[in-house]
């Protein structure tokens, strides 16, 4: 069996060969292992040495988040420290739409944890549309402690949903100051663009709100404060773990107003069921003591974003509560225009106080008859009497003598027909008619021409005349202040909350009327006469101080020739507006005011008592008794 002896030898040789082959392969494998580990080592070197700086920065950026710290908005108080706007802290449940995949489902699930009403959903939808889903949007505000605890226990289920402590604005006086203090609201795109243009965006990081109307808007710069910065360490869920450094925010400054909250309330309530406006000014400074536009609205509705139902209710109300009547409502001044006309005549030398006319009860101008309110006329009338009894014929004639441009030049000096520069935005200019105004206002040449007949009714405050209550108040305050006109302003001073440093809004004399003191004295005497023996006498009977005033009635709908105005026959919305301008005490005026009561009727009956209530409180501290039902008055009260 030779094979037997050969085979083992072959097998051994083969086995050794196989083992050799195997060991070669193993060596190859080991080299490959070393090569692969070298690749890893190179990769580690690349990441940990070459790219270390960059990746270290990324890790830090991961870790550190710069969080703005929103400053407290300054508060707003009246002259006596009554709070008109302040902040309170509350917890809100907020969603970052960018971090939530299915918004509807998340909100549905959240509703199982905290109460989320239909109103909250509507408001959230509106916020989503306004913000285009950027930032953190509140789905619920003012969470209760129990709701906070319930959400905290379920927080892991809701990535992108957080509870935040936020400061909320509150207006404790509600609708009383809605048109003066205004309100804040969420920053919209237009405001954001504006902030960007003014390079103020950085200071609004983290801030969702900005002043929208009233003082909140015009004093935004002072109220907002300076945003602080906090460096916090966050985890991968974006939740703050600890604070690394902090630059505290600087609170906004407080506003202290000239307004008297109690006076404002008395004035507001004095309107009773009527709509209207009242502006009261301190003649010596231009400080605004009361600023009423009725009806108002609850500004608190706007703070966390108004829901669509409330919004359309406010917007569609026939009473138009959103209109700031004192600032942007323009009305014909009616007979309150007459003392200004008289002063214009004296200043221009067109009349002396003693000059009289004989009033037959009408004025015939080129075949057109302008009626006096009193049938048969007032008889012999001088300037004093023309104001006291409110004689129309006297002013028809005077208007014709002064001419439209003579009238408009003087009224312009009184501030009528142009913005007064009040420290609240949105002022309307009104219309001070003149030839130039008409040329600009109309397109067709026959409309652009001023007809002399149009001047006649201008003389009694009708026609194109249209002024805001602020303008009328500023004008009567100017008379009260012997012709020196101050810019009306609502804020007394801005107070730095830390240093207590006060920056007053300085009284700013705009101009002095180019008229002699004795001329103004004549007008003042006549205005005192109105409240003593004229159209205002009934309203001011037994006042306990001497006051000056002038009634006015502004037509809403022109009467047809020969038609007599009978209040009860005219539809409510077409009834006349009642006006009254006044100041007191007559010898050293502390307060001047203008009142307009929309669609009520005669100024003497409806507007003068409101003025009386305001003056009574301001001068005597008298709080009015609850209103009594009114009875029909005699014709002699008409102006």
């Amino acid at each position, binding site marked *: 069996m030779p094979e037997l002896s050969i085979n083992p030898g072959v097998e051994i040789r083969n086995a050794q060969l196989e083992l050799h082959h195997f060991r070669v392969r193993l060596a190859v494998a080991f080299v490959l292992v070393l090569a692969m580990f070298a690749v890893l080592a190179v990769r580690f*070197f690349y990441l940990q040495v070459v790219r270390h700086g960059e990746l270290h920065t990324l890790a*830090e950026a991961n870790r550190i988040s710069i969080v703005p710290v929103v400053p407290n908005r300054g508060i707003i108080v009246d002259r006596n420290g009554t709070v008109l706007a302040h902040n309170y802290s509350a917890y809100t449940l907020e969603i970052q739409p960018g971090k939530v995949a299915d918004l509807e489902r998340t909100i549905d699930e959240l509703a199982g944890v905290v109460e989320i009403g239909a109103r909250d959903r509507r408001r959230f939808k509106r916020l989503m549309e306004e913000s285009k889903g950027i930032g953190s949007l509140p789905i619920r505000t003012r969470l209760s402690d129990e709701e906070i605890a319930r959400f905290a226990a379920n927080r892991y289920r809701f990535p992108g949903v957080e509870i935040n402590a936020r400061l909320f604005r509150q207006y404790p006086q509600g609708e009383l100051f809605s048109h003066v203090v205004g309100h804040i609201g969420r920053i919209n795109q237009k405001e954001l663009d504006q902030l960007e243009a003014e390079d103020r965006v950085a200071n609004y990081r983290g801030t969702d709100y900005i002043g929208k109307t009233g003082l909140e808007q015009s004093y935004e710069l002072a109220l907002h404060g300076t945003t602080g910065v906090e460096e916090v360490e966050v985890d991968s869920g974006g939740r703050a773990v600890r604070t690394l450094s902090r630059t505290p925010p600087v609170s906004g400054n407080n506003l202290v107003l000239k307004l008297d909250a109690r006076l404002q309330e008395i004035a507001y309530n004095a309107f009773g069921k009527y709509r209207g406006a009242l502006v009261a000014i301190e003649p010596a400074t231009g400080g605004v003591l009361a600023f009423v536009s009725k009806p108002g609205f609850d500004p608190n509705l706007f703070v966390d974003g108004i829901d669509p139902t409330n919004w359309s209710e406010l917007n569609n109300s026939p009473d138009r509560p959103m209109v700031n009547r004192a600032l942007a409502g323009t009305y014909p001044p009616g007979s309150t225009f007459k003392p200004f006309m008289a002063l214009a005549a004296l200043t221009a030398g067109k009349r002396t106080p003693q000059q009289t006319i004989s009033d037959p009860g009408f004025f015939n101008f080129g075949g057109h008859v302008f009626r006096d309110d009193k049938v048969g006329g007032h008889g012999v009338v001088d300037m004093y009497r023309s104001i006291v009894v409110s004689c129309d014929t006297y002013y028809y004639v005077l208007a014709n003598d002064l001419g439209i441009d003579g009238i408009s030049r003087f009224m312009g000096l009184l501030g009528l027909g142009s913005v007064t520069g009040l420290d609240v935005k949105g002022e309307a200019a009104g219309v001070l008619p003149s030839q130039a105004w008409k040329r600009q206002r109309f397109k067709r040449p026959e409309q652009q021409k001023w007809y002399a007949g149009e001047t006649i009714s201008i003389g009694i405050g009708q026609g194109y005349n249209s002024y805001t209550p602020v303008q009328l108040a500023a004008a009567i305050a100017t008379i009260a202040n012997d012709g020196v006109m101050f810019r009306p302003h609502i804020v007394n001073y801005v107070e730095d909350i830390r240093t207590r440093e006060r920056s007053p809004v300085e009284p700013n004399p705009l101009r002095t009327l180019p008229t002699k003191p004795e001329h103004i004295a004549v007008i003042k005497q006549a205005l005192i006469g109105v409240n003593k023996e004229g159209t205002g006498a009934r309203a001011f009977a037994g006042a306990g101080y001497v006051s000056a005033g002038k009634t006015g009635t502004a037509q809403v709908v022109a009467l047809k020739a020969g038609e007599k105005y009978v209040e009860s026959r005219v539809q409510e919305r077409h009834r006349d507006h009642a006006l009254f301008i006044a100041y007191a005490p007559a010898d050293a005026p502390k307060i001047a005011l203008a009142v307009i009561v929309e669609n009520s009727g005669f100024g003497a009956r409806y507007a003068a008592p409101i003025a009386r209530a305001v003056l009574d409180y301001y001068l005597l501290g008298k709080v009015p008794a609850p209103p009594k039902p009114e009875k029909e008055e005699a014709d002699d009260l008409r102006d």
Partner: protein
Amino acid sequence: MNPAIRRLGGHLTQHVDGMLLGAVLALMAVGITVLFSASNASVARVSTQLMNILIALATMWVFANIPPQHLRRLALPLYILGVLLLVGVALFGEIANGARRWLHVGITRIQPSELMKIAVPLAMAWYFDRYEATLRLGNYFVAAMMLLIPVGLIVRQPDLGTSLLISASGFFVLFLAGLSWRIIGGLALAGIASLPLAWSLLHDYQRRRLLTLLDPSQDPLGAGYHTIQSTIAVGSGGVLGKGWLNGTQTHLDFIPERTTDFIFAVYSEEFGLFGNVVLLLLFLLVIARGMVITANAPTLFARLLAGAITLTFFTYAFVNMGMVSGILPVVGVPLPLISYGGTSLVSICLGMGILMGIATHKKLVQT
């Protein structure tokens, strides 16, 4: 010392390979240290892992004491059982996380693909050993089929990571058994050529993982998030690391699965390049010792098995660190001996035990 006790000690340790045990224990110590940090100092996690380590060491000791020829007898039955279980999974398996990987067996549920990680190289080594004298091309083909049947079943589950790792261990057996270089080259070319086909067979999430590897920033909050964050963690560690317990990426929760598959990111962030090199050397020590044992193994079966175990160990380590450092796609492979989890630890130590058994029983045969 009492000679009886000494003799007992000698009996207990006679099949333990000192160098391998030293390297394994060192890696386990590193693992426990990192786990303490990665779990935010969770005593519960660490104690569980210490229990796992004890079980794994016991398993290692048991397998070290099994002579390789006993394993050889177990190889085929284990393999057949494994394939049957995989078929069972395909038919009655339980779906979890979109994959059918688990099978209910009485009181517990098992993942048969785990078993195949050792059963496949074992069976292939047995097969080559059985036909050692008459090896022809056809044998390689049969061996390849032994590999492809379970891999095909696992791919279908789908579990790409496990099937690739089993393929690798099977390939190591084929390679060490002397598969011709020409065929290896041909397979490589065929593999490259069939890439488009393979691509079309992949699931969407698998494709996304591969694409993400090429450019993680494509999907920073989705599939790329793991890679971006772990790369940042590794890189921000620098040369010396941020120090134990000081990794911000880790402790602020930016690293996902930071106690298991991504534990290397934690280690790397806290111990830096220096720590990484130490770790690579420890792994290399295990691999080198495994290679020496392989080279000196007495039979073809022992050689192929030892080689496959060693190279598979390397593959685990390489794939995991490559994945964490962003050069390999994210596949669910734990870092051997470091990652938290009993299954991986026990199966690795089982392999280490087999290596020790191969190393020590040879000596006994010789003496």
